[in-house]
């Protein structure tokens, strides 16, 4: 880039650069004001301790406090549980669905695509409330299982920590699989159908085509959705807040839930909450970096 630019006359270069900057200025100003400035403020806040507005600077006291906090440890563990269990299942399901729905011979393709994408149009709050109603002790799922005689006592879906985590994962799968599928479908449009035709002529099975053509050619998009989903899952909040309130105990609490709780629902410690937010920020950055490295190296 720089070597290329150096060959151009310096005056013209400066002039176009100035115009370019002018064009992107509105966006830059907005990003700086809405994103970067709050980030700096949040970092400064994370260096202060105290309750409510009685804050004083205490260096890294909040960060030193984190490793000693059992609730933080529990929330961190739960968050990674959601990340490790939910993201791979969701992305694989989205990929398989996309490959299936990309088949030109399939009838009612548009209908299926719409149906699978539709949950994305549901607000997270309504979606969580519906799943809460489905899984209560007299909800639809328990009633059906009882009626069929598969169980004799309602399953404590939301009051047992293990079940509750699984229900939350199921809710997230329902809500987000379609969203990722759309990215893959868009990616598949760019793969020439002749590639598949050639593979078929050579006798490749559907599974082989999926593994050897679809997945490698969609790698950049898979990478993109992985980063996006990791980011989203690390910030998981709505489902937990509505369906379990983090319970039983701290069994389903996530980092964002804990941050919200100590900011708004308990004696407010904004500094400590900000410090926790920064740990999420660092985790997102590190995981995204690793994923990019892994994604690139296989090319």
């Amino acid at each position: 880039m720089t070597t290329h630019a150096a060959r151009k006359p310096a005056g013209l270069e400066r002039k176009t650069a100035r115009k370019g900057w002018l064009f992107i200025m509105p966006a830059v100003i907005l990003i700086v004001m809405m994103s970067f400035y709050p980030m700096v403020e949040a970092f400064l806040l994370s260096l202060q301790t105290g309750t409510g507005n009685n804050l004083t600077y205490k260096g890294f006291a909040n960060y030193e406090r984190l490793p000693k906090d059992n609730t933080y440890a529990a929330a961190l563990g739960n968050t990674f549980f959601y990340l490790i269990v939910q993201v791979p299942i969701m992305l694989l399901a989205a990929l398989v669905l996309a490959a299936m729905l990309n088949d030109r011979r399939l009838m009612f393709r548009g209908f299926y695509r719409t149906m699978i994408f539709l949950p994305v149009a549901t607000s997270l709050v309504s979606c969580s409330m519906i799943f809460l109603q489905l899984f209560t002790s007299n909800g639809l799922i328990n009633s059906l299982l009882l009626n069929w005689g598969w169980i004799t006592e309602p399953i404590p879906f939301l009051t047992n920590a293990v079940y509750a985590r699984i229900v939350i994962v199921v809710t997230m799968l329902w809500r987000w699989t379609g969203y990722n599928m759309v990215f893959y479908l868009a990616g598949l449009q760019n793969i020439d159908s002749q590639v598949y035709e050639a593979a078929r002529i050579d006798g490749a099975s559907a599974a082989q085509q999926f593994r050897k053509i679809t997945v490698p050619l969609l790698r950049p998009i898979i990478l993109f959705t992985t980063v996006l989903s990791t980011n989203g899952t690390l910030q998981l909040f709505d489902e937990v807040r509505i369906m379990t309130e983090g319970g039983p105990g701290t069994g389903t609490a996530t980092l964002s839930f804990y941050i919200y709780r100590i900011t708004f629902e308990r004696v407010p410690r904004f500094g400590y909450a900000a410090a926790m937010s920064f740990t999420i920020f660092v985790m997102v950055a590190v995981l995204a970096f690793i994923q990019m490295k892994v994604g690139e190296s296989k090319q």
Partner: protein
Amino acid sequence: MKKLFALLLTLALLLGAVGALAETTITVWCWDPTFNIYAMNEAAKVYKEINPDVTIKVEEVLSADCETRQTAALSSGQTDSLPDIVLMQDNSGRRFLDTYPGAYFPMDGLVDYDNFASYKIDKFTSDGKRYAVPFDNGVAATFVRTDYLEQAGFTLADLTDITWDRFIEIGLKVKEATGQFMLVTQAGYADFVSMMTQSADFWFFDEEGKPNINNNPAVKAMVETIVKLHNSGIVKEAVDWTEYIASFNNGTAGSTIQGCWIIGSIVLAEDQAGKWGVTNIPRLDIEGGVNYSSQGGSSWVVPASSKNKEIAVDFLSKTFGASVDFYQTILQSSGAIATYLPAAGGPAYAEPHPFFGGQKVFEDLMSYSDKVPLVKYGVYNYEARDEIVNAIEAVFNGATVEAALNDAQSAIEFIME
């Protein structure tokens, strides 16, 4: 045509301005349509006669949302989003007053506090100033389906002045006879954590405000009792508030043990009229354990940012703080039992309640109210309760009570550091 229009517009604006000058609107946040919203609307009617220029506008805001909105407004300094009056849980009083000094309007001299129960005033006293007009009494009671008891061969008297162990025994028989749960509470037993502890004259903190969990006989007995209840299978553990209310409204559970403000939700099931009774709560079987406690209860506060705070306090003191008749009105339909002492002498308290088979429910509740142990709430009530709920969950999963409570003690000490 244009001129006429302009003239009309000016006129309309002028009239609007004049109207605005004479009328004051007081906005109120509270949360329960059958209870405190109803009471507030009744109070508005009373005040309309005293000061017709004031309109009271009630907005339904959930209790938890009232708190998050206040935290957001007070922390950011954007206090113009706050209303003129907010209803606040007694448990949260000290937390807001101590965390945001100067954010609420002191009412000393404006409200006649001699007429209120002193335990209520304490919960909103900070630095010697009083910040709230007390509202409802949170006295706890056992609300029970007498027809379920009969099917198992018991009467209301069998459930009166008993221990929790006896309650479980009766509950098992009721479950056997009716096939329904004896009791419903929200999963986590958070309500019972505070109610039981207080019933033995203890709280999560000692006199100096230090956490008192692992060496607290009441907390230990409370956790053991909750584990017994959980293991007995007589308790329906509701996932959320909606399921909790539904469980006694649809007969899945035969009783609830709760602050008396729950009456408003119990009487919603009109088909169950005459099948309910009220008695005192089971006691912890330790020294000092009594059959009385309280749960919930709330008070009216006025944010200092309100432009009409004098009028707001005047409204509160002339209705909630002065009118015996008003309390008689709200009592029958909402069960809002006053902490305004002169109200107890009114005739409505002695009236038999048809829904509870003619029992003089309010008189009984008032008599329990005098016997509730008075404990001193702290700033970190909810944090302490959270940690005990976590400890109980750990015991459910196999930890010993002692180890779990030691963890809870160090966790709350850590939070208060």
